[in-house]
């Protein structure tokens, strides 16, 4: 007679209970196992989402519990979509998103391509390059604020060194026109290593024999790059773009620490504006509609992108 713990447990199970369990189908047992997770998912994700949709049709303000909540229909959505300020914030977000992704892809891929070559100290260089992404955004925001400081900051002195423009005559974070590029530089510095790592994984997944076959066929290095390297790394690169796109669409902490959305509204990203509406102005209904619009935008764009990614993978 076997003496494993399961056998002992089976023998100890009262016949009446055993009969009941035997009566359950595999499908029912599977549901029993996943039910707690589904319940948590509904409670933590789905219910708040539905509640937010409901609030978005009201004038509810979380800081005014005594005020009567009115059903305002689509008025919140109408006000948001016809608000020039919000469209300007969307443009600011798009500018930040497109430039950070473009720079991170180009620099990240280049770094990965260089790191992928065998050379002495390769591991040390890789470790040093990935250091920025290991830092907290709060730390990054604070020390780049010092680097950008016109009187004591390194950046202004470097600019003065190369251009002759006096260091204290301009402010990277305060001047109109410069601030939006300053936050792009910081995000690129911080997150290019992430793109590089994903590209590196892609480059290292390409079997050597493909390049060897190309060499036999006398394909040039340029040709090998465009017909082997780029297509085979592309799915990895697209994945990196997806991650960075979603992350930067909801970028908040680093930009708040660097500029607070200023000067004026020059770096006021949609996520920062949403936080102000929801938790500083306490326009809960209005900000719920704002959040739904942002959610639909990200969800829609991400869905289209994932379909494109799958097509690239199938090729």
């Amino acid at each position, binding site marked *: 007679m076997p003496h494993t713990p399961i056998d002992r447990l089976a023998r100890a199970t009262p016949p009446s209970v055993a009969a009941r369990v035997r009566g359950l189908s595999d499908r029912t047992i599977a549901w029993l196992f996943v039910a707690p997770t589904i319940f948590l998912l509904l409670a933590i994700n789905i219910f708040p989402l539905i509640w937010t949709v409901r609030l978005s049709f009201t004038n509810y303000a979380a800081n005014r519990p005594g005020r009567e909540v009115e059903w305002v229909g689509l008025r919140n959505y109408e006000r948001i979509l016809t608000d020039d300020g919000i469209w300007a914030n969307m443009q600011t977000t798009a500018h930040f998103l497109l430039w950070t992704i473009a720079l991170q892809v180009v620099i990240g891929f280049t770094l990965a391509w260089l790191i992928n070559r065998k050379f002495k100290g390769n591991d040390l260089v890789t470790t040093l390059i990935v250091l920025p992404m290991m830092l907290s955004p709060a730390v990054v925001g604070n020390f780049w604020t010092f680097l950008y400081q016109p009187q004591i900051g390194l950046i202004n002195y470097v600019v003065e060194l190369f251009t002759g423009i006096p260091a204290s005559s301009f402010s990277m974070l305060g001047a109109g026109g410069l601030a939006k590029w300053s936050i792009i530089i910081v995000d690129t510095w911080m997150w290019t290593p992430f793109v590089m790592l994903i590209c590196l994984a892609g480059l290292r997944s390409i079997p050597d024999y493909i390049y060897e076959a190309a060499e036999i066929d006398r394909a040039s290095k340029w040709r090998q790059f465009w017909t082997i390297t780029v297509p085979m790394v592309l799915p990895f690169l697209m994945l990196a773009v997806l991650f960075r796109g979603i992350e930067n669409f909801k970028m908040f902490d680093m930009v708040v620490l660097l500029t607070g959305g200023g000067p004026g509204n020059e770096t006021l990203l949609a996520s920062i504006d949403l936080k*102000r509406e929801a938790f500083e102005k306490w326009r809960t209904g209005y900000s719920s509609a704002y959040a739904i619009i942002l959610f639909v935008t990200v969800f829609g764009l991400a869905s289209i992108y994932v379909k494109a990614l799958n097509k690239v993978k199938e090729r």
Partner: protein
Amino acid sequence: MKGRLLTATAAAALLSAGAASAQSNELTLCWAAWDPANALVELSKDFEAQSGIKMNFEFVPWPNFADRMLNELNSGGQLCDLLIGDSQWIGGSAENGHYVKLNDFFASENISMDDFAPATVYAYSTWPKGTPNYYALPAMGDANGWFYRKDWFARPEIQAAFKEKYGRDLGEPKTQKELLEIAQFFQGREIDGQTVYGASIFTERGSEGITMGATGALYAWGFKYENTPGKYDMEGAVNSPAAVEALEFYKELYKTGTPPGYDNAYMEQSLDAFKSGQVAMAMNWFAFFPGLYADPNTGGDKIDFFVNPPQNVAASTLGGQGLSVVSYTDNMDGALAYVKWFAQPDVQAKWWSMGGYSCHNSVLNDPGFKDSAPFAGDFLEAMGGVQDFWQEPAYASLLLAMQERLHNYIVADQGTAQEALDGLIADWTEVFEDEGKL
């Protein structure tokens, strides 16, 4: 077994009762983290000794103070039994039931609001404004003032250079335009081998900084929020020619008289700029003046103070806070006992001597008050002409709209002063319409 269970249950019940009793013998007072808060900790030791109630303190840095505390109130949190909240919060906190109405308590304890400076009672205690409905005891009088490097102003070569340029002696500015001239005079000047700048002013974007700074100029030009108080008729008041001129002035001061990089500066940055010897003048709240005077490097005989200079009228931006009892406290008796203790004239006198700004008439009207500190006379003068921002329940929306409009115009160079103020009226109109007041 059952006996043991009963014993354990009884012990647990006793422990819980003990914990509850200990909790009701404690109070938590919430305020901003700054110099006066440290003075209050010391002062409150007297209350602890007299009452046997242990005082805990929750001090939040200014940039996060409003966010943190308003979230606490809005969620009905029990962190704070007592709150020294900003004057602008009183409307919302009274209407939403966060603060206890203190009229009956004041009457039963013979605490009279006539014993406090009228401007502070109006600003820190009443809602609706000016009515005898009290939700706070005036705790910390404050206004935005100025301080300067007296030692630099006194140097003969600097005096001579200033007189040659402006044809008058260099001294404390008597008008806003004189202040601008002095700031421009010092801007980029070499003093002791170091490049110095004119003035450090408030330009902060995130919370309330640029509004508190720019209103110093706006009020001095005669800015009003409404043509008729209580009517919300802002057209012609908020965007009057005088208001436009004041805003243009503040922008010129920022562009031509402040250190580089001070585009998001508030209290802390103003103090840093002055203490590090970068600026000849700086604006800040009177609350910081005792600490500035005591500074070993730039205080003492190197510093002096002046009230926000008038232009068309004498006026200063109001700061300061009232002491309120939070409705959600589980130690109401203890909280009220603290308010009663704090209202006593001898406690108020000690409060002033320790660095707090008492609003009690027995302190302010004392013949020796003006000479009790180098800034005491300026404080009295400033409090005689203070003006405050909207104290409406929707003040946060009103404030953020002004922050945005002012920063866009002054720092980010977007549009004109007229457009900024016209836009502000549009923003505020929308808020008041949402509130059902227009």
